[in-house]
């Protein structure tokens, strides 16, 4: 680990503006209202990024005060100073100043839900041991009042060593001005002067730290004593010297005996919390309010599960129906813009690059933005109301039977719209194995980009017969959806039984009470999501779109028959472009599936984004860009092999649809898997696995039917 060296900067060279004077870490347990308060304090003056090497989001905001500003770092939710998840690990690293690229905090803003002082104070007493200035914000103070909770603020402050305590209501802004006043000079204030809740541990740790003669903080040794030489604590053990391991072990033995240290810590610290609560709180409530009654009703097995299906249906419907007008608008704008380029730039390669490569390529990403925004609007909204946790709770048993947990349900449903936000939504799954299994299952769900391909093929080749009271078209489409779900679930099962075999993770989920979400917070989060999506996925698919464009455009055909129509010329050009040649080259590979070079090149072109296939088929079959589906399906039906037999037979079409149902033809999905798993291993595996399944499925369909 590198140590930051102190450098002397002359006073007049310190940048005055935009440079925060201090950095304050915002720490709180999940659902403590931390994000709402953070957004209230910083508004839009915040940056969302990632911590180096991991997918945990890093939220940093600027808090402008009268004549200076401080940087607020919104740390991932944590219950205490022992790291059990990646998020808690990150919080710890930042608090201990071990996070590269993030300066160690100068002070701490502890966020505590006023209706849940029990867990909140557990965290606060641990934060006090960091020996930094601390202010405690008691959020949701209105809810506490409504529940008849009486908290003696002065006494509470006294019990935690004089650290200021500010009751706030982040949704309305009540009490935030007073909190800002405290924050403005927090860094200059002394650290709380509290007797440690666990004097034996503090003394033992202080002694070890002192005898080492190094600038090691007491709290770091405390963590070493309780948590042992974990990844976080190993450097401390190393710094303590060669005989440290045995000394630490002796002290641990004396402190904990045979009791598990963490359990021991929980017992001692919660005893302190109870003592403080008895002092500052009128009575420990057992949690009742009218909202509890609503929750009670929605929690009964039957109404709860029915309610959940209604909510899921609404989300699914909204993502499909509400997004359509916006998607049509984006589609039309893209076409119009391409037309504009054609009229102004003529028809050289540059115009084609701009129109067919850049505009069409970027358009193919942006077109998903409405769906993603609507989906995330719902997810953020449901998360903020506390319903998301409840959905996971209600469906846990069902999902467990297929080897996943309740938390996988939202990503899976989201993936019916688009796998990209679905995979992004897997962040709510704390268990890594479960998360990756869900990520691998998600792309099998029939996304909206598969729909046009299915629609085209079904309309062209499935007879419009009535089966009972159902239409065969609808039935086939439904079958394809079912096929996707089954394939996804089997994949999850398979992967959990093989590569990701491991104990079924326990399912302990904090269930927050229902809350009215704050629209301001929801919108700020939504904006952040949109920016992240456009920046990350956009760059990848843009590059790939330009590459595919080049493959279809070069080399130019030189000796085209001038008698050909424009569309026929385009088809001839495509046949001898790199893409067309590739189609010919790989034709033998796809021949067993019954595909000719035209279908093969369309499929290849579809690998970056599967919906491209329609456009490429349109070009190959020389019906022009504005191919209406009727013309295209007519061409497909009459398309033949050189010997006159039709290419598109029913088994071949079924095979083609199976291929589409399975194959991972979506660069954006691959990019997002890469980002969310933080390795190339999983996207490469998913691609190979899904392509193989698709190929084998199509082969079996064509050969056996």
């Amino acid at each position, binding site marked *: 680990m590198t140590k930051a060296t102190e450098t002397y900067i002359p006073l007049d060279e310190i940048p005055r503006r935009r440079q925060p004077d201090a950095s304050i870490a915002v720490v709180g347990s999940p659902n403590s209202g931390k994000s709402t308060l953070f957004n209230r304090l910083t508004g839009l003056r915040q940056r969302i990024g990632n911590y180096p090497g991991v997918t945990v989001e890093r939220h940093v905001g600027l808090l402008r005060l009268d004549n200076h500003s401080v940087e607020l770092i919104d740390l991932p939710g944590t*219950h*205490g100073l*022992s790291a*059990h998840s990646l998020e808690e690990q990150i919080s710890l690293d930042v608090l201990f100043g071990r996070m590269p690229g993030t300066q160690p905090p100068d002070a701490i803003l502890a966020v505590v*839900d006023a*209706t*849940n*002082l*029990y*867990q909140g104070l*557990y965290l606060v007493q641990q934060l006090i041991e960091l020996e930094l200035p601390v202010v405690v914000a008691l959020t949701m103070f209105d809810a506490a009042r409504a529940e008849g909770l009486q908290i003696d603020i002065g006494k509470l402050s006294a019990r935690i060593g004089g650290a200021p305590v500010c009751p706030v209501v982040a949704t309305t802004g009540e009490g935030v001005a007073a909190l800002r006043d405290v924050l403005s000079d927090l860094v200059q204030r002394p650290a709380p002067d509290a007797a440690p809740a666990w004097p034996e541990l503090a003394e033992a740790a202080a002694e070890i730290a002192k005898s080492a003669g190094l600038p090691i903080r007491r709290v770091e040794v405390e963590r070493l004593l309780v948590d042992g030489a974990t990844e976080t604590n190993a450097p401390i053990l190393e710094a303590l010297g060669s005989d440290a391991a045995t000394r630490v072990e002796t002290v641990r033995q004396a402190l904990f005996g045979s*009791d*598990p240290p*963490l*359990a021991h*810590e*929980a*017992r001692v610290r*919660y*005893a302190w919390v*109870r003592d403080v609560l008895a002092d500052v709180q009128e009575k*420990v*409530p*057992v*949690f009742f309010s009218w909202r509890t009654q609503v*929750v*009670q009703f929605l*929690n*009964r*097995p*039957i109404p*709860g*599960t029915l309610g959940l299906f209604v909510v899921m249906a609404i989300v699914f419907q909204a993502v499909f129906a509400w997004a359509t007008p916006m998607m049509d608008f984006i589609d039309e704008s893209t076409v119009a813009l391409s037309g504009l380029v054609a009229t102004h730039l003529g028809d050289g390669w540059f115009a084609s690059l701009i129109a067919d490569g850049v505009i069409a390529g970027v358009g193919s990403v942006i077109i998903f933005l409405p769906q993603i925004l609507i989906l995330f609007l719902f997810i953020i909204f449901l998360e903020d109301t506390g319903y998301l*946790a409840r959905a*996971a*709770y*209600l469906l*846990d*048993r069902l999902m467990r039977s297929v080897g996943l947990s*309740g938390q996988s349900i939202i990503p899976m449903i989201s993936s019916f719209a688009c796998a990209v936000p679905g995979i992004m939504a897997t962040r709510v799954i704390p268990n890594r194995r479960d998360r990756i299994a869900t990520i691998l299952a998600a792309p099998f769900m029939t996304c909206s980009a598969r729909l046009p391909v299915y629609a085209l093929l079904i309309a062209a080749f499935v007879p419009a017969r009535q089966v009972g009271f159902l239409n065969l078209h609808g039935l086939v489409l439904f079958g394809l959806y079912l096929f996707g779900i089954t394939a996804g679930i089997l994949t999850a099962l398979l992967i959990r039984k093989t590569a990701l075999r491991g104990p079924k993770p*326990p*399912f*302990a*989920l*904090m*269930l*927050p*009470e229902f809350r009215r979400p704050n629209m301001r917070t929801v919108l700020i989060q939504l904006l952040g999501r949109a920016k992240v999506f456009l920046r990350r996925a956009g760059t990848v698919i843009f590059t790939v779109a330009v590459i595919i464009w080049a493959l279809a455009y070069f080399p130019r055909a030189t000796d085209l028959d001038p008698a050909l129509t424009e569309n026929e010329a385009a088809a001839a050009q495509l046949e001898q472009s790199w893409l067309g040649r590739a189609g010919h080259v790989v034709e033998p590979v796809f021949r067993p599936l019954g595909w000719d070079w035209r279908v093969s090149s369309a499929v290849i072109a579809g690998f970056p984004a599967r919906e491209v296939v329609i456009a490429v088929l349109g070009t190959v079959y020389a019906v022009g860009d504005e191919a209406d589906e009727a013309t295209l399906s007519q061409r497909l039906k009459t398309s033949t092999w050189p010997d006159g037999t039709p290419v598109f037979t029913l088994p071949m079409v079924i095979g083609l649809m199976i291929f589409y149902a399975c194959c991972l033809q979506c660069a954006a999905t691959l990019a997002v898997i890469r980002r969310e798993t933080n390795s190339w291993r999983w996207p490469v595996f998913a691609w190979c696995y899904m392509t193989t399944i698709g190929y084998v499925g199509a082969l079996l369909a064509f050969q056996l039917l």
Partner: protein
Amino acid sequence: MAAFDNTLATLKQGQIGTIQSVDAADPQVQRLMVLGLVEGTDVELASAALGGDPMEFRFCGSGISLRKEQASRFKVTQRDRGD
């Protein structure tokens, strides 16, 4: 005095159990203790999902969902809410 083999998993809806002892060998159980499920905590069964598993508990201002298997690691003495 209630029978000694009562656990959180045997609570009925609306019953409150006071945790008497915790089988803390399992690291996952230790995590639950960090969340506040330690000896002396009053825990109420709020509901159970379809099929009785997982179960939802409330204690000291929080709600938590546990699977039956985890809930059975916490021995309790139980009483009805009205008592």
